């Protein structure tokens, strides 16, 4: 399976992820992901299980993240954004592709080798209720990374933990309290403090605010931004809320059925979305302004996202796309950089330069 999939990794030159422009300038590339795939086998049979297919949760994704920046990954359920995050943090083993962190290939490093790397790559989870052990005190939860990694701190773990609690806006005197004594927003802060303990370089945040109330979401979003400034953190933020993603990201990748369909600087993506799916997504977001609700042009997708078990061939979106033509079902559109720092995988992109379709056709090898 993996070899077969590997054969199709033919990224055209135009999409080279190392292109300095495409990552928006400043900072060196901290994380580089290329051709990343995760296929979950599907088995059937009464006695002998034979593989009858695979859920292509992630099916060839390329992107890079520069130090000190935030990459947002958006998409609807089943698009593979969470699986991608878990592969970066190596909670899941990639089926194929490469993950390079600080110039080092970590795609298949063993758990033992991964251990020191875990200091550098940390994860924030969605649910602040289930991700904290209810029987441990806050001090012990936040201090656990020090103990696990045998890190000596100058003035003892307790002091270090209290400093962390202070940094994330919690009262350091609450060191001995238990998670249930905190509200949802405070628990998310505890989770963030734990993540920060070992001064990681990269934080993968999977839906960090979606379980929180609106007013609390804003607090946590601001906190994440402050921490980024203070500690020079690099984020990969996975979220379904397009407004939140725009707010915190420098670059945004839009995923659909395991594939990256558009990758761009955040401002450009939201102003000039090129992929029809991105256009539809943005059009679907309810806008908190009643005066424009009748004036807005709406694009409504029909039906649901197809099953990742049996995704449509070539462009995964062509079955729901209003611009689709025959070619969309036969030739997979390559990622092409149609504007500085703005790549899109579509034969007939919107908001694109006049010669976009020719460029795509050339890249797809069908002049």
């Amino acid at each position, binding site marked *: 399976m993996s070899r077969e999939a590997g054969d199709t990794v033919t990224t055209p030159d135009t999409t080279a992820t190392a292109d300095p422009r495409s990552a928006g300038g400043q900072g060196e590339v901290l994380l580089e992901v290329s051709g990343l795939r995760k296929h979950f086998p599907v088995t059937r049979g009464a006695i002998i299980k034979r593989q009858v297919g695979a859920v292509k949760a992630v099916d060839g994704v390329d992107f890079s993240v520069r130090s000190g920046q935030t990459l947002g990954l958006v998409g609807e359920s089943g698009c593979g954004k969470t699986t991608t995050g878990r592969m970066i943090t190596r909670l899941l083993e990639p089926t194929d592709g490469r993950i390079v962190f600080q110039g080092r290939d970590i795609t298949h490093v063993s758990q033992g080798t991964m251990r020191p790397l875990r200091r550098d790559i940390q994860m924030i989870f969605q649910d602040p209720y289930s991700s904290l052990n209810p029987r441990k005190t806050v001090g012990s939860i936040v201090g656990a990374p020090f103990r696990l990694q045998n890190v000596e701190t100058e003035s003892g773990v307790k002091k270090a933990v209290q400093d962390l609690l202070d940094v994330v806006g919690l009262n350091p005197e609450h060191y001995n309290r238990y998670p249930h004594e905190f509200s949802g927003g405070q628990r998310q802060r505890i989770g963030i403090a734990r993540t920060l303990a070992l001064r990681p370089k990269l934080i993968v945040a999977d839906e960090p605010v979606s379980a929180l*109330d609106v007013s609390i979401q804003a607090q946590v979003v601001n906190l994440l931004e402050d921490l980024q400034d203070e500690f020079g953190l690099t984020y990969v933020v996975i979220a379904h809320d*397009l*407004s939140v993603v725009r707010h915190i990201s420098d670059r945004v990748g839009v995923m659909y059925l395991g594939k990256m369909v558009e990758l761009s600087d955040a401002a450009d993506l939201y102003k000039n979305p090129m992929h029809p799916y991105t256009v539809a997504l943005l059009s679907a977001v309810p806008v*908190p302004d*009643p005066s424009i609700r009748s004036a807005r042009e709406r694009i409504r997708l029909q039906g649901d996202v197809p099953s990742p078990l049996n995704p449509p061939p070539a462009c995964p979106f062509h079955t729901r796309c209003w611009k689709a033509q025959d070619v969309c079902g036969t030739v997979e559109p390559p990622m092409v950089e149609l504007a500085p720092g703005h790549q899109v995988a579509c034969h007939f992109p919107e908001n694109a330069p006049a010669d976009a379709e020719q460029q795509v056709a050339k890249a797809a090898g069908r002049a």
Partner: protein
Amino acid sequence: MTEQDAITVQAPRAFLEVRDLRIHFPTDDGLVKSVDGLSFSLERGRTLGIVGESGSGKSVTSLGLLGLHNRKNAKVSGEIWLDGQEIVGSSPEQVRRLRGRKMSMIFQDPLSSMHPFYTIGAQIIEAYRIHNDVSKQVARKHAIDMLDRVGIPQPDKRVDDYPHQFSGGMRQRAMIAMSLSCDPELLIADEPTTALDVTVQAQILDLIRDLQKEFNSAVIIITHDLGVVAELSDDILVMYGGRCVEYGEVEELFHAPEHPYTWGLLGSMPRLDRDRSDRLMPIKGSPPSLINVPEGCAFSPRCAFAELNEGRSETERPELREIGPGHRVACHLDRADRRRLWDEEIRPKL
């Protein structure tokens, strides 16, 4: 209700009229005042959006409207008039006959809200046949029609599927078909799209809007998402700590809100229809526990402008006062101060 009160009760003018609704739950830790004096009204053909965070009492209100609280562990008082019939004082049996027929509800999570062991069709047929004396065949035909109406392809086949065989969006459509099967005049949608993807959410919101036009029913949509209410509502009720803090027409509420909590909600959400702001303006602190709702104004501990009231916020509960046609606010701040704050401090930063 005492006899004296009963005499003073006036016949309601609106289709739905809620007067001083209180829903309290006695617990071992104390009395939880989930809803504490809520009043509003709603006409047929109009949509009311109830906005609030978790624990604001918005879902408890919706269950209260349907008379779904167990009278053993919930103390419900006040009046709910639905088309001339009072619900709080009615017998459970009387209220039951109204449920599903006159008023019905769509819930947040369509998967857990449907019985896993019965087919979609069976669940719609059941809803239809309680209130309509028809044969199973007729009810089945009706169920298929309803599924068709809410946009489920091949309804004559899907009617025999189980909920888990439907996708999330299709399940919510089926749920809507079930709620509308008896042509209710009041439809309550409690976070109907929170569990759905954004493109599916848009489909469902369109569907609710279209069906409302078709059925001319009154709709209450309960949500934490200001975007959703802005899309659907005619009026908006903002709840905080079990009370209404601001009520008004949707345009008014989004363009000239007067309660600091409403400002806070608007400032908390990043918006796609504006340029990217540098910073969000969150509300400090967390929502109050409903057991120890602060004395005075429930919002005062989190309010950035409470000190302008020289301590009144902590001691005196602000009344909900009419400040313009249909616009009511419960805030101690001076009207002029509120307008100045909104114009000078809040709106420019949104």
